């Protein structure tokens, strides 16, 4: 059997990890080791203080019930309503349904009818609802950091702008990618109202080289829409398209659509990933090669040469040269691509225009333009122009810019040399929070939250979607469109601006014959409208653009700056849910860190948690080291988006007790900001540099890693014959027809347990397709929002006390330098023969007649016996009173789920509140429950659609079909607890690491 391991320590099997497997929690300093009898004291104290308890039994406090003054038609208190909208967590523009209860938004769900995201929503999208209820959001405009009134600020800014207009001085507006037609029109109007103004687009995760390469090869500055669902062979050079690259939800959805091993015949794209660090995408790859960023361009060049030869195109523009990838591998890769002409896709995430041109050339040779790459209806999800940004910074440094307006970006923290912004005489930030740029701005005119304002987006040409407010503005903020329109001389409200744009730009492109009013109503209801894409002036591929690349000399250490799926850019640094979300691969929370390959760490004599100083180009940063299997030996990877001013708020996060370690680093922030290591080179923001020096500072910084928490492995001395358990199971595509489910427990007749659960009605169960799961962790945050799960802070995470009901276990297998990865969502398995139930002394956890393992908070006295006896480590204990008296932040709490108090055990309930609600609603409508009507929060959010919930007693339910799949198994089936959660085995392409055929 294959051996799985979760960390390097486990692989090596040191004494610490063995001890960790034996004791679930870190030893507490409060343990009484000597002195009088603790039990005796507690008994006596119980008698002595019983009276105090009894005297508390009095009439409950008086509560007011305040109804609406006027009934709103069609609104019932206590009923949830859903409004279609669009996510604004990043420019990808996924479809949303905003769930509101009694006038307040409480949850964001994916809109299943949205053609891009198809119901999926990533962790960032799920967590972005917290932004609305953020008490530290700016409540009114600021002038030089002091609170001011809107009319004053407007008048002063207008006066200054008038002076600038008269003097014909330069005004610049720096925005992130704007996919919104309305905001684009407003910005255009703003720019045109000045004699000398320019609009510059800057993305923290820039795709500028892709746009520029298409300018060279196709004569238009466009970003193609990538269609992973149509690709049978995918080759990705350093593009983390399932994690952070351009539109991860859309790509995960379409990638998953192209990998359906249960379809007949099985459909399974072949995915090769060539990357420097272990990304989410790399963890799903069928083949993975480790290349440092400097090696990638040459590999693309050699691959292009080989593909050119095989497709009969000219191959004299470059010479064969040895590169980081062996000739045999290159030939094999070229052969595979050529065999799938028109059905393959090469993507490149490297910020290097030359490499991108060759990537385009590869796709051109393979005939992928028009099939897997859409340039007729291109994407607008990244429009950043790094050349223009670099020019802007020079202009500012030269004192040529009189006024700079920055809506939605934080250049001071995101850009190298962003400090020059301090020299702008009139700097106006539209940031909703006091970020680095806003705190030096002359004026801050806070933008409203997306849930408070009207908006729109056309993320992909032809797919226009609307954003509608779900609540009135909570403070004196104003949508950025209104603010900019006002400064350009207009007075319109955001609603009118959006409607005008749709009347002028979107409705004429609609394919139906309905008038504007009907079109608007339908679009507003659906949240999205499919219209004709705008004409793009794409020219045929220009072969002249293809040029050989100058080889880069080999370097010792390369610094790679990347984005994490949890905090893709610093905009989300305020969000505690995202800060505490374990990274899908490293499983680290509350920090960024320097990722090193284990062999590199050994060479540099650095251990995990050692603080290392990174120095490059005159900048330095101290970060803790983290050992990352599967990383290139010469690469040190550091996440961007950390060390932000907004993370200073987490100084008091988590329970404040005596032995608490701080959640913040030395500088009082979460992590360190690495953006000063970025630089502009060849007109592109470079995310890597080779002049890195790494030194050990001798300091230590503990990292809150969850990878060894809640481990299911058994210590050897407890299970002498066992060893590794078949927790993750995998199969090979070629073997799929031969797989037989091991049904030992399914049909076992001898059973010591009484058959007291007949399950005559429904029997709820969940199935997870491990082959589809990418580990993106959207489900973790979805569960957290739905079930009022608290944030506990870094120290508690270090003590194994994170509260996530649903965790993603990440397993490595094989060679630690180039391991294979499997992701396994693990939650309460709702066992039929639940080991937790038999040990609860107060019957706080019992079985329901529908197969649920119920947890009754008000009955629980907190013995924690159940958690000790849970084989899946799926139970979470409230060590402290995590609920806070924060009236604003508490508005996000789901009123249908109890807020647990201290001393109570909690766990996944299969979203029983949703089950109950759907059952009652079906009864009300006098009909049977429909399959698929109940979706758990994790299932709803999953972009890969890897989770199915349903009735196991209904043979036609989708769940039953998954449960009958030949790939289905149950974790720890051998201990006969009979989980209600089925897992579908990971499907690997032909090669596995058995026999050591892995590459790396």
């Amino acid at each position, binding site marked *: 059997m294959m051996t799985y391991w979760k960390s390097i320590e486990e692989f090596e099997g040191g004494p610490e990890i063995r001890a960790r497997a034996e004791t679930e929690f870190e030893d507490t300093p409060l343990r009484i080791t000597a002195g009088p009898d603790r039990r005796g004291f507690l008994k006596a104290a119980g008698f002595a203080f019983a*009276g105090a308890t*009894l*005297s508390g039994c009095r009439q409950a406090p008086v509560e007011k*019930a305040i109804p609406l*003054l006027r*009934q709103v038609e069609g609104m019932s208190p206590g009923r949830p309503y859903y409004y279609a909208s669009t996510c604004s967590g990043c420019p990808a523009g996924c479809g949303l349904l905003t769930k509101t209860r009694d006038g307040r938004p409480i949850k964001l769900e994916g809109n299943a009818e949205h053609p891009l995201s198809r119901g999926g929503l990533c962790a960032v999208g799920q967590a972005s609802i917290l932004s609305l209820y953020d008490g530290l959001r700016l409540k009114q405009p600021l002038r030089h950091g002091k609170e001011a009134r809107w009319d004053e600020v407007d008048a002063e800014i207008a006066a200054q702008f008038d002076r600038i207009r008269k003097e014909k001085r330069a005004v610049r507006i720096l925005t992130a990618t704007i996919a919104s037609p309305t905001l684009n029109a407003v910005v255009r109007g703003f720019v045109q109202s000045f004699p000398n103004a320019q609009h510059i687009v800057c993305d923290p995760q820039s795709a500028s080289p892709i746009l520029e390469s298409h300018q060279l090869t196709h004569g238009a500055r466009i970003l193609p829409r990538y269609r992973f669902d149509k690709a049978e062979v995918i080759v990705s050079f350093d593009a983390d398209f399932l994690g952070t690259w351009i539109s991860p939800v859309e790509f995960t959805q379409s990638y998953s659509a192209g990998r359906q091993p249960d379809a007949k015949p099985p459909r399974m794209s072949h995915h090769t990933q060539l990357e420097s660090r272990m990304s989410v995408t790399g963890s799903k790859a069928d083949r993975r090669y480790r290349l440092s960023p400097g090696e990638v361009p040459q590999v693309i060049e050699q691959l292009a040469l080989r593909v050119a030869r095989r497709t009969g195109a000219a191959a004299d523009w470059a010479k064969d040269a040895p590169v980081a990838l062996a000739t045999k591998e290159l030939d094999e890769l070229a052969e595979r691509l050529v065999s799938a002409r028109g059905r393959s896709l090469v993507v490149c995430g490297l910020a290097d225009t030359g490499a991108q041109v060759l990537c385009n050339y590869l796709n051109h040779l393979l005939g992928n333009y028009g099939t897997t790459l859409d340039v007729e209806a291109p994407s607008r999800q990244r429009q950043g122009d790094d050349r223009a940004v670099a020019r802007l910074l020079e202009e500012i440094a030269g004192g040529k810019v009189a006024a700079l307006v920055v809506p939605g970006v934080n250049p001071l923290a995101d850009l190298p040399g962003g400090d020059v912004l301090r020299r702008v005489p009139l700097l106006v930030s539209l940031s909703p929070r006091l970020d680095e740029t806003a705190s030096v701005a002359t004026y801050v005119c806070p933008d409203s939250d997306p849930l408070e304002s009207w908006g729109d987006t056309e993320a992909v040409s032809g797919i226009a979607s609307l954003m509608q407010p779900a609540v009135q503005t909570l403070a004196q903020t104003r949508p950025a469109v209104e603010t900019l329109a006002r400064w350009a001389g207009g007075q319109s409200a955001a609603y009118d601006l959006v409607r005008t744009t749709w009347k002028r730009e979107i409705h004429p492109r609609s394919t139906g014959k309905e008038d504007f009013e009907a079109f608007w109503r339908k679009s507003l209801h659906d949240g999205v409208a499919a219209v004709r894409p705008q004409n793009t002036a794409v020219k045929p591929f220009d072969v002249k653009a293809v040029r050989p690349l100058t080889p880069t000399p080999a370097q010792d250490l390369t610094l790679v700056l990347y984005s994490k799926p949890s905090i893709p850019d610093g905009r989300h640094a305020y969000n505690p849910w995202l800060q505490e979300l374990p990274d899908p691969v490293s499983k680290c929370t509350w920090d960024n860190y320097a990722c090193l390959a284990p062999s590199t760490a050994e060479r540099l004599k650095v251990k995990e948690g050692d603080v290392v100083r990174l120095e490059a180009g005159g900048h330095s940063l101290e970060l803790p080291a983290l050992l990352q299997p599967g990383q290139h030996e010469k690469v040190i990877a550091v996440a961007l988006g950390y060390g932000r001013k907004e993370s200073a708020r987490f100084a008091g996060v988590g329970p404040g007790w005596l032995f608490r370690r701080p959640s913040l680093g030395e500088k009082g922030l979460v992590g360190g900001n690495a953006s000063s290591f970025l630089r502009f080179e060849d007109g592109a923001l470079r995310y890597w540099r080779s002049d890195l020096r790494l030194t050990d500072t001798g300091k230590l910084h503990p990292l809150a890693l969850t990878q060894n928490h809640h481990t299911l492995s058994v210590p050897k001395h407890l299970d002498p014959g066992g060893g590794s358990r078949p927790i993750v199971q995998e199969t090979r595509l070629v073997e799929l027809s031969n797989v037989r489910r091991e049904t030992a427990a399914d049909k076992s007749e001898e059973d010591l347990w009484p058959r007291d659960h007949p399950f005559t009605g429904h029997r709820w169960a969940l199935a997870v397709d491990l082959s589809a799961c990418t580990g993106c962790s959207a489900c973790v945050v979805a569960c957290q929002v739905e079930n009022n799960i608290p944030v506990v802070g870094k120290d508690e995470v270090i003590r194994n006390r994170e509260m996530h009901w649903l965790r993603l276990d990440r397993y490595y297998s094989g060679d630690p330098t180039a391991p294979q990865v499997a992701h396994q969502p693990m939650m309460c398995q709702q066992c039929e023969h639940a080991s937790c139930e038999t040990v609860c002394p107060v019957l706080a956890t019992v079985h329901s007649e529908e197969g649920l393992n*119920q947890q009754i908070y008000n009955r629980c006295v907190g013995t924690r016996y159940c958690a000790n006896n849970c084989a899946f480590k799926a139970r979470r204990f409230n060590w402290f009173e995590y609920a806070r008296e924060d009236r604003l932040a508490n508005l996000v709490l789901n009123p249908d789920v109890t807020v647990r108090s201290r001393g109570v055990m909690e766990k996944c*309930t299969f979203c029983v509140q949703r089950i109950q609600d759907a059952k*009652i609603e079906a009864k009300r409508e006098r009909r049977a429950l429909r399959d698929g009507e109940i979706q758990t929060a994790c299932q709803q959010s999953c972009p890969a659609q890897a989770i199915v919930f349903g009735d196991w007693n209904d043979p036609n339910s989708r769940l039953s079909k998954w449960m009958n799949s030949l790939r289905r198994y149950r974790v720890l089936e051998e201990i006969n607890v009979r989980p209600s959660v089925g897992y579908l085995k990971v499907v690997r392409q032909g090669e596995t690491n058995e026999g050591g055929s892995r590459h790396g």
Partner: protein
Amino acid sequence: MNPRITFVVLATGLLFSSWGLVTRVGAFRLPGNQQGYSPVQPIAYSHRLHAGELQIDCQYCHFNASSSRHAGIPPASICMNCHRLVTTSFGVFRAEDELAIQENRKPRTLISAEIRKIYDALGLDDERKPAATKQPAPIAWTRVHRLPAFVYFDHRAHVNAGVVCQTCHGPVETMERMRQFSDLTMGWCVNCHREVNRSGVEGKRVYASVDCSTCHF
């Protein structure tokens, strides 16, 4: 710990807690049991008059009961469906009418003090027209029926199963001021759930689950 200190701590605890118990014994109540609670409300609304004498259906005002988990307290705009015209009690109205005939004049609009509170809440003047000087403000009723935060009761399920309101709320149509009739304890809930599984509701067979997660989640 020193046994003497332990003794002092425990003895003080005993004293302190006995004192607490003795002084509050009059107000003693089992936790969660508020049976008989009948607070004074901001408007002296009479269920006896409306539901008893006038026989207005419960769900005319508490229209949410069949569609939402909360039956809901009616918004003031529901009151106005009748009280747009009915400004005072019938007796006062008729007396003024007779007086007006005697004095040979048009009857005056008399508004009772309690009904005026509805107009005040909605910001209306005596002619029931929006008054510029009055700021609308919702009526803050004192909640009578209250379940602990870890219990989820759903009116929808019960009303649609045919359970009449009086089963839990008692003879509301006889109550001048609203009173909590049942003790609303878990035993009381579960007994009824068990009972209806045997006897049905209004002769109709029903199934009321006694699983914990029926109410606790």
